[in-house]
C-alpha cells in the first residue's frame, strides 16, 4: 500500500464517520420507550402495529398464504367500527418462504426496524423455532403462533412472551390414536410425517394409543417433492390406514403418488394439512380432471377445532360477513377462517387490556383471562401461569366433498399422559356478539 493509499484510507475513514453520522439513527427514537407501567412500543394513541411472518411463497404457500388475508380482513372490520379503545389495528405481513433463515431476517426487521407491538400468528414450526428465543429475549409479545408444536406453550418460565393457539400436534395425535384404537383396532397403521416437530409430536401422541398397531413410519423433508420412496415403503409394509402429519402440498402429493403406485389405504390427515378444497385443486390439475376437485379427499378423516366453511355456525356466518365486507379476491376458505379466528382472539385481548396498553399488560391479560372469553374454538384454551398452550381439544371428522362431518364429540386432553375426556364446558355452543366485535370486560 502506498503512502497515498494510507492517506486515502484515513481520509475515507473520516468520511465514513461523517456519513455514518448522517445515516445512523442513534438509539431507536421511535421505540416508544417505557412508560411508567411498561413497554408501549408499537402503540400510539390511535394505532397498534402488529407484525407477522408467513410463507407467501415456497412449498408451504398453498393454503397457508391465505391466512394473513383473513387476519387483515378482520382487522379492517374492527377498524371500520372504530378500532379497539380508539386505536386502529395495523398489520405488517412479511414473507419468509417457510425458510428459517429468512424468518430470522424478517422478524429482525419487524422488531428492530418497524418496532411492532407484537408478533401475531407467526407461521410454521421450523420457521418460528428460529425466532422464538429472540422474541422472548427482546420481550416482544409472541402471540398465537400458527403451528402445533409444544415449544410455544409448554414452558412459560423459559418463554413467557410466547403463546400457542391451535391444539398442539401431540394432543391431536392422542385423540386420533384413541379413535383408531376404538374404531379400527385391527388396522395396520402407517405414519407419513414431516421431518420436524409437526411429524414428531404427532407421532408421540399416536404411539401412546396405537403403538402396537403401527407397522411403518416414513418421513419427508419439506421442499423435496419426490415422495415416491416413502409411499412405496408404506405400501410394502401393508399399512391399510395411514396417518399424515404434513402440510397441504404434501397431502396432494401423497394422494397423487399413492394413485401412481396403486396404493389405496384409508387416510387420516392432521387438520393443518387437510383442506379438501385445496387438495382438490392441486390434484385435479395433476390428473387433468380425472380426480374431480370436490372428491379429492373423500373418505379421508381429519380433526377440527374451529367451525369451518359450510358448517352451520354463527361464527361462520360472522366470517362470511367479514369477508364479504372487507375481504379481497377469492372466497372465504378455511385458511382465512383460521386467520380471522386468531385476529378475533387478539382483538379480545386488546379489549380486555383496556386503554393502558403495554406489552406486559397484554401478556398478563391473556394468561389470566383468555380462557373465559367467547370464541370460535370448540374446546377451551389452556392458558394459565403453568401453560401457554392453546386450544385443548378437537373432534374427529370425516371429509366428504368440500365439507366435513363430525364423527365424535369434542374431546379434550393435554400433553403428556393426561387422559382424554369429553369436553364438558360447552364452549362450542357460545355464539359471537351481534356486531361481531369482542365485548369482553376490561380485566382489573
Amino acid at each position: 500500500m502506498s503512502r497515498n493509499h494510507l492517506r486515502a484510507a484515513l481520509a475515507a475513514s473520516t468520511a465514513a464517520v461523517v456519513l455514518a453520522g448522517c445515516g445512523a439513527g442513534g438509539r431507536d427514537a421511535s421505540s416508544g420507550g417505557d412508560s411508567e407501567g411498561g413497554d408501549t412500543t408499537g402503540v400510539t394513541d390511535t394505532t397498534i402495529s402488529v407484525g407477522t411472518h408467513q410463507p407467501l411463497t415456497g412449498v408451504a404457500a398453498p393454503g397457508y398464504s391465505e391466512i394473513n388475508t383473513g387476519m387483515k380482513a378482520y382487522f379492517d372490520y374492527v377498524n371500520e367500527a372504530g378500532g379497539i379503545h380508539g386505536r386502529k389495528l395495523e398489520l405488517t405481513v412479511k414473507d419468509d418462504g417457510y425458510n428459517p433463515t429468512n424468518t430470522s431476517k424478517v422478524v429482525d426487521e419487524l422488531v428492530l426496524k418497524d418496532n411492532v407491538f407484537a408478533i401475531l400468528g407467526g407461521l410454521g414450526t421450523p420457521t418460528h423455532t428460529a425466532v422464538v428465543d429472540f422474541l422472548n429475549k427482546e420481550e416482544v409479545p409472541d402471540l398465537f403462533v400458527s403451528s402445533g408444536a409444544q415449544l410455544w406453550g409448554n414452558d412459560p418460565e423459559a418463554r413467557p412472551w410466547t403463546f400457542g393457539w391451535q391444539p398442539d400436534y401431540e394432543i391431536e395425535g392422542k385423540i386420533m390414536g384413541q379413535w383408531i384404537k376404538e374404531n379400527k383396532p385391527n388396522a395396520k397403521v402407517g405414519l407419513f410425517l414431516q421431518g420436524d416437530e409437526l411429524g414428531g409430536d404427532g407421532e408421540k401422541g399416536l404411539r401412546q394409543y396405537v403403538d402396537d398397531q403401527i407397522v411403518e413410519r416414513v418421513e419427508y423433508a419439506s421442499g423435496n417433492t419426490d415422495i415416491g420412496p416413502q409411499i412405496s415403503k408404506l405400501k410394502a409394509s401393508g399399512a391399510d390406514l395411514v396417518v399424515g402429519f404434513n402440510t397441504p402440498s404434501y397431502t396432494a402429493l401423497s394422494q397423487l403418488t399413492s394413485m401412481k403406485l396403486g396404493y389405496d389405504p384409508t387416510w387420516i390427515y392432521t387438520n393443518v394439512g387437510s383442506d379438501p378444497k385445496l387438495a382438490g385443486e392441486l390434484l385435479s390439475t395433476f390428473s387433468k380432471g380425472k380426480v374431480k376437485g370436490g372428491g379429492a379427499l373423500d373418505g379421508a378423516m381429519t380433526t377440527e377445532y374451529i367451525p369451518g366453511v359450510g358448517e352451520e355456525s354463527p361464527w361462520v356466518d360472522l366470517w362470511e360477513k367479514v369477508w364479504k365486507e372487507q375481504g379481497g379476491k377469492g372466497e372465504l376458505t378455511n385458511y382465512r377462517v383460521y386467520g380471522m379466528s386468531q385476529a378475533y382472539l387478539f382483538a379480545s385481548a386488546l379489549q380486555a387490556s383496556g386503554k393502558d396498553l403495554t406489552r406486559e399488560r397484554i401478556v398478563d391479560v391473556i394468561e389470566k383471562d383468555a380462557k373465559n372469553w367467547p370464541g370460535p374454538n370448540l374446546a377451551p384454551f389452556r392458558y394459565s401461569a403453568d401453560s401457554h398452550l392453546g386450544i385443548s381439544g378437537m373432534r374427529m371428522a370425516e371429509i366428504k366433498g368440500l365439507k366435513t362431518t363430525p364423527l365424535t364429540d369434542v374431546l379434550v386432553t393435554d400433553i403428556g399422559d393426561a387422559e382424554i375426556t369429553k369436553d364438558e364446558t360447552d364452549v362450542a355452543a357460545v355464539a359471537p356478539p351481534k356486531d361481531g366485535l369482542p365485548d369482553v370486560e376490561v380485566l382489573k
Partner: protein
Amino acid sequence: MQLINTLLGGFSVGMIYAAFALALVLIWQSTRIVNFAQAPMAMITTFIALKVIESGASYWIGFTVALVAGLVLGALVERLVIRYVDHDNHINPVILTLGLFIVLHALAAIVFGSSFRSFPAAFDLTGIKVGGETLALTPFSIFTILVVVAVMAALRLLFMKTDLGLTMRATAFNREVASVLGVKVNRALTLGWALAALVGSLSGLLIAGGGLVHPAYMDGVVVYGFVAAVLGGLDSPAGAVVGGLVMGIVLALVSGYLGSGLVPLAALIVLVVVLLVRPGGLFSTTKERTV
C-alpha cells in the same frame, strides 16, 4: 419388487436427464460453453405452457407452444447475449450463463409468481398392473421414454443426413475454417442454441408432468444433467444419453435405499470420480490437457 420399481423409476428419470444432458452437449459442441442457464430456460418455457393450458387450451397445444418457445428463447439468447462474450477468458462465459440463470429465475417469479402449481400429465398417472402387481411405470413414463428416444433419433438424422446438420458440425469442429469455406457460421450457432433449448424445454415439460412446478423446480436437474453430460463426455451426444441413464438409475438407487438427502452427494462423488479417472468422460475422443 421395490428394486424393480426403483430401477424403473430411475430409468424414466434417466431419460429426462439424458435429454437435458443432450441439450448441454449440443451447446458445448457448437460454442464451447456450458449453458448453466439451460434449467431456468426450460422452466420458463414450461411455465408458458402452463399459462396456455390454464387458459383453456389442450395439453398438446401447451406442449407445442413450450417447444416453440424453447426454440425462440434459445435463438434469442445466442443472438443477443452469448455472441458478444469474450471467449478467450474461460470464466466470462460461465458467469454470463449464471447471470442469465438468476435473471430468468427472477423474471419467472415476477411474471408467473413463486407459488407451487401443479402441472398436468399427458397420460394416465396410475401405474401399470402386471400380474396383480403395480409397477412404478405409468403410461406417462412410457411416453417420456418414447419421446426422448424419438427426439434423439431426429437429431441424429439432422446432423448426419442433412446439409444443415453438416453445416452445424463443421462450425462446431472449426469455426474459422468453416467460415472461410463459406459456411454461415452465425446462423449455425443460433440454430444450435435454438435446437438445444428445444431439447431442454422437452426435458422441462417431462419432469413437470404430474408434479409441482415453481421457479426452482429445474435447479436440481442442472447439477444432475451436467454430471450426466460430463460422464458421457461433453463432446459426445451418445455419451450424454448413456450418462443420463446411468445417473437416473444410480440416483434412484441411492434415493431409495440410502435416503434422498444423499442424492446430491452421490452425484458429486460420481462427477469427481469420473473427472479424476477419465477427465474427458466415458466416450471422450479428445485428449485432455496434461498441464
